[in-house]
């Protein structure tokens, strides 16, 4: 192929490549816009934060039950509640099935309803906390949250 014939073919290829890139950019922008719009219309999303303060382990070692964790936590799937357990103590905390190191946190969203139990070492009697996750009261909210996962 002579250079004069190669030049239009190369230019065509570059046009196609640019068109593909612009289309991908457009899709990305549309997705970001959709998620932004979803977040705007669902302001009920919130966090339930349980903080284990500094000094808890020492108090516990001295036989004092210093941390009040609710016996029951209620979360809703459709509102996309997030449970956060944050260890601000200097010692490792044992919560249910995991350990949290100093200044480490555990974050969980619940995507389906159910009942979950946590046994926490910070409570002197190692009682259970029951986390009950409710299905959304708003079917549209659940549908939208599934759409944008």
């Amino acid at each position, binding site marked *: 192929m002579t250079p004069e014939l190669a030049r239009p073919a190369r230019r065509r290829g570059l046009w196609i*490549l640019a068109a593909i*890139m612009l289309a991908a*950019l457009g899709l990305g922008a549309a997705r970001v816009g959709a998620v932004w719009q979803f977040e705007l219309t669902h302001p009920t999303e919130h966090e339930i934060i349980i903080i284990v303060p500094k000094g808890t382990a020492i108090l516990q070692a001295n036989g004092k039950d210093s941390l009040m964790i609710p016996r029951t936590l209620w979360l809703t799937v459709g509102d996309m509640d997030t449970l956060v357990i944050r260890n601000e103590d200097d010692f490792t905390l044992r919560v249910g*099935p*995991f350990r949290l190191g100093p200044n480490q946190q555990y974050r*969980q*969203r619940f995507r*389906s309803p159910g009942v979950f139990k946590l046994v926490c070492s910070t409570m002197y009697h190692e009682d259970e906390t029951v986390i009950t996750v409710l299905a959304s009261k708003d079917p549209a909210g659940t549908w939208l949250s599934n759409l944008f996962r």
Partner: protein
Amino acid sequence: MGLFTGFGWQRALPTLALLTVLAGCGGGQLRGGVFEPPQPAPAVVLTDQRGQVFDLSAQTGKVVLLYFGYTYCPDVCPTSLADISTARRELGADAARVQVAFVTVDPQRDTPQVMTRYLGAFDKAYLGLSGTTLELQRVLDAYQVKAVRRDTEGSASYTVDHTAFIYVIDPQGRLRELLPFGTRADDIVNDVRLLLRK
């Protein structure tokens, strides 16, 4: 000539390419219970069903899905392993960088032969791990796994109540998240892909 005449648009292509990549990124979040910041996963040194030593620290470069269960488990374990199998099929070529390790909480019955047969029904690449009582207890304690034997009245049989999370360890050897029982295969796929990408 159109829109791009005199613009030097060939030089704009690298910028466009970068923006394209960025547009495809983002919005990816792990869907399980996530540890922030992640810490090194507790050590696991056990023996697999082929008699070879399995050392978690030697699995860097792969995502490890660690699961604690037993082969006589009536429902929870087969369901979880089936979900993981479905996820591995959906991962396609990425599955080669995922190692599934099944740690028995019932070493008495879960012999190497039993685990080979059981796990092979899900995926021949699964590793079934066991060890001495002390070795197993060390790992169970490190991962805060509860395993309680429940004898069946009037029978020599028993079940074992056990923690049913999937422990997800990233290619850097850090414990990243816990996936609870019932996590969907597409959520497992999402999280594994995110971790392989990072």
